[in-house]
């Protein structure tokens, strides 16, 4: 190998403490080094030309630059050498500035160290191989999972940028939780009014394919090249024929059997139903568990009235396949409910609040439905038990949140805000009513958020009491709420007509399963993990899969929407090029020596290692070996260090390259 060494003075920066000419002349004596020189500013144009010239004149095939940190100029020198015909991965940098001249004073020892540093990389570069950047083609199509406000926003952004989107929604309609809300903080604008136009836009968008009442069953492939299997659940209605006229729903005699999920169990719905009037798509579904036909074989009234013959009792689940290049997960959250003991053996949960036994103790979403003009009470403040107007209402914050013993340790972040909103909405409707809020801290960090809470207190006269509630019980038609005001140091007992619990926002039931299908990591609560909490908040650990909204952590609408747009932007960055180019610093398996133990597979955090069958000519499997999917490999090298037979190596940091450095770190004894 013909190696060239170039020592940079960096003006005085290196030259002051390191005797650069001596370093260069010492390096000239290393075996394999055919050229060594020093220069004032290596990264300057003349400096780079010096290297290019030497490569040509001395016919160099590897270069070591002794200058600043590779984080500073590795790209510069790789490019210069590449221009001169050397593979960029045959260039190494010795850090003589940050790791030597700047941190030492003594010239002789700094010079000695500099020589060592260059020698180590000269030895390493002898084992470097030319590498070619990995190029994978990109399918410029996105899958969005979950049609809440986050999924809607992400879909619209991508589609408006000119790319196709497949939007998969588990429920019969998109809209998510936002469609259930009455009015939204901090502006108190009507949720449906701002959401519905976007739902319609999704529906009508030529580049968005909406697949509702469906779930993602399987995902294969890697960034730029995913193949997704979607299960379309049997709706019992042919969506291509249905016009959404709603006749079937009107005619269905099974009116009051099932509790409406949309109304949080406060109202009933027929067997044939659309979740809410503005549903998108506006295509009904038969709830087979309550439909008379499915139970007894009789009825079919819906079928009789449907002029479009859209009703299909025999419909089966359908599996459809979609190829996409990026995936955005926007599956949202659910609410912690107190109406059961979460774990019989441990008995956690809020027995002291009645385990859901009191009808007039409701949760936040139930209150939204009561407050909503389209809700079961048409927006009139009526309590569930006897439909009277509650004159005294108590809100309790942090139920299930910040509660290690009965719920979850985290703060749900938005309940302080929605509680203030609820109390205001209540006061706006029941002027002579009294509203109390039990809180521990008020977390209203957001634009105009604290002002909003202050308004509830100062303008609407909501009484905030700092302390947790210990017990709620019923006495003579009142709900007795026993709390403590820790500021005054007095016990407070309120005989309320209704109690609203701000229960925690928690992960969806199936989030862990979905995370596993997608190979993305999740936290101990079941929320999907971002790749880096500060700098990669919408990426996951798996390339090409992004997160939006409350599936990542409790989050309000503005944050969900920003995150969705950010995730869309990340997908669009991916779609910006036809092929993906990545550093070829990835692991590679030597199939001849691999013993098939798959220790490597266990330690890879990116699920980059697959099993590959090696077959003989007759097609019989002779052995199974590891195979690194370079689309997924991030180049950490953990597999390399783990493999007992040294059969998987990280290119650019292979064993012999590192041993070469170790062997030469000091003059050999």
């Amino acid at each position, binding site marked *: 190998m013909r190696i060239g060494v170039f020592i940079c003075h960096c003006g005085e920066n290196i030259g002051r403490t390191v005797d650069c000419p001596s370093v260069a002349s010492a390096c000239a004596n290393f075996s394999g080094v055919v050229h060594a020189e020093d220069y004032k500013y290596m990264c300057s144009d003349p400096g780079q030309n010096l290297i290019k010239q030497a490569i040509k004149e001395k016919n160099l095939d590897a270069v070591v630059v002794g200058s600043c940190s590779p984080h500073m100029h590795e790209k510069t020198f790789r490019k210069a050498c590449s221009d001169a015909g050397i593979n960029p991965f045959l260039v190494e940098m010795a850090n003589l500035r940050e790791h030597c001249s700047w941190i030492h004073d003594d010239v002789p020892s700094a010079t000695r160290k500099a020589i060592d540093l260059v020698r180590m990389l000269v030895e390493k570069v002898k084992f470097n191989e030319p590498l070619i950047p990995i190029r994978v083609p990109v399918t410029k199509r996105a899958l969005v999972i979950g049609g809440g406000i986050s999924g809607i926003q992400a879909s619209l952004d991508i589609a408006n940028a000119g790319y196709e989107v497949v939007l998969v929604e588990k429920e019969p309609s998109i809209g998510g939780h936002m469609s259930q809300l009455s009015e939204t903080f901090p502006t108190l604008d009507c949720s449906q009014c701002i959401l519905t136009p976007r739902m319609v836009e999704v529906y009508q968008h030529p580049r968005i394919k909406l697949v509702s009442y469906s779930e993602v069953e399987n995902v294969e492939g890697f960034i730029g090249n995913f193949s997704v299997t979607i299960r379309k659940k049997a709706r019992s209605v042919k969506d291509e024929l249905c016009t959404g006229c709603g006749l079937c729903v009107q005619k269905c005699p099974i009116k009051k059997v099932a509790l409406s999920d949309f109304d949080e169990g406060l109202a009933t719905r027929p067997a044939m139903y659309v979740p809410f009037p503005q549903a998108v798509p506006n295509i009904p579904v038969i709830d087979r568990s309550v439909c008379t036909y499915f139970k007894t074989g009789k009825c079919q009234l819906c079928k009789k009235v449907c002029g479009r013959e859209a009703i299909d009792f025999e419909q089966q689940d359908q599996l459809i396949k979609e190829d996409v290049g990026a995936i955005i997960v926007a599956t949202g959250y659910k609410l912690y409910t107190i109406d059961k*003991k979460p774990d019989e053996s441990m008995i956690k949960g809020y027995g002291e609040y009645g385990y859901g*036994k009191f009808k007039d103790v409701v949760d936040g979403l139930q209150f939204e439905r009561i407050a909503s003009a389209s809700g079961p009470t048409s927006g009139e403040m009526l309590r569930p038990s006897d439909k009277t107007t509650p004159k005294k209402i108590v809100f309790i914050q942090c139920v299930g949140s910040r509660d290690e013993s009965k719920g979850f340790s985290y703060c749900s972040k938005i309940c302080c805000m929605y509680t203030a909103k609820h109390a205001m909405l209540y006061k706006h409707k029941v002027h002579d009513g009294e509203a109390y809020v039990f809180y521990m801290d008020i977390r209203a960090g957001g634009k105009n958020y604290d002002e909003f809470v202050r308004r509830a207190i100062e303008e609407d006269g909501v009484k905030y009491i700092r302390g947790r509630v210990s017990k709620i019980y019923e006495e003579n038609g009142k709900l007795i709420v026993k709390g403590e005001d820790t500021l005054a140091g007095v016990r407070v007992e309120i005989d309320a007509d209704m109690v609203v619990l701000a229960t925690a926002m928690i992960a969806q039931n199936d989030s862990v399963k979905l995370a596993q299908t997608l190979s993305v990591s999740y936290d101990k609560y079941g929320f999907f993990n971002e790749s880096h909490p500060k700098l990669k908040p919408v990426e996951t650990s798996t390339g090409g899969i992004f997160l939006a909204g409350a599936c990542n952590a409790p989050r309000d609408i503005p944050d969900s929407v920003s995150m969705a747009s950010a995730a869309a932007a990340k997908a669009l960055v991916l779609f910006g090029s036809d092929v993906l180019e990545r550093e070829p610093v990835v692991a590679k398996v030597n199939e001849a020596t691999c013993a098939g133990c798959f220790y490597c597979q266990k330690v890879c955090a990116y699920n980059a290692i697959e099993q590959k069958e090696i077959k003989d000519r007759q097609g019989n499997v002779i052995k199974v070996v590891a195979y690194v999917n370079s689309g997924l490999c991030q180049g950490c090298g953990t597999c390399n260090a783990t493999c007992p037979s040294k059969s998987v190596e990280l290119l650019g940091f292979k064993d012999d390259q590192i041993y070469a450095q170790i062997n030469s770190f000091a003059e050999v004894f």
Partner: protein
Amino acid sequence: MNFGYYPGCSLSGTAKEFDLSLKEVLKYLDTDLQEINDWCCCGASSAHSASHLLSVALPARNLILAKEQGMKEIVAPCAACFNRLKVAQHELKTDDHIRINTEELLDTKYSDGINVLNLISLFQQIGLEKIKSNAKVDFSKLNVACYYGCLLVRPHDILKFDDPENPTTMEEVVKATGAKPVDWNFKVECCGAAHSIAHTEIVENLSMKILDDAINYKANVIVVACPMCHSNLDMRQKNIIKHNPGRNKIPILYLSQLIGLSLGLDHKKLGLDLHFIDTAPLIASLSENEVAV
């Protein structure tokens, strides 16, 4: 069936009728109790007020005795004793420091392995079916408020007995007698227990709230499984009424007495005459419906 028996101080004193009725009922249900020889007080709330170590050492002594006397399962009908025994067991098992100090204090080695039952779990073991099939008195009009108090259910992590906020095991036993448990609020509220003597006024106040709620939910009787609960609700009730004139009385029975009644056992032998709040009217109203054997 055969169980070891740790009566505790109350059952050999103020709660005589608890002891009487329990033995009477068990005799009927073919169950023997073998009293731990030379048992001592479990220390109740006074021991752990004075010394954490003492609160473990006294129960430990009894557990060791039981083991030495060949027992595997012991019944502690008093909820306070049950609680102290279980908590001590737990600490001895999980905290080496405490165990070593206790062994040093008692001069004996401690080894785990005694199963401690409370009154309710005893009846569960015997079998509710047995109670149901032997019930002779029609209890269908009887509304019962089951009162657990603090010590049967807390701390849940250690006792692992029933839901600490809304327990239902006593209700199951009561249902086996044919009576109707009421769903009320103060099943596990504290009656003031230990302050019965030092702060009578506190106990009266707390007990009054419990009595009120039971009456409010239309209970004819409150059933308890703890002598301290009983004395606070029964003995103190007289003064409560005196200090708050015009209040209704409600009789307080031990669970064992209720079962005994349903089995048609002799009232005197069940100690039903030993209460401060007269049980006679309640019993009279029952016997009107008594079913012939």
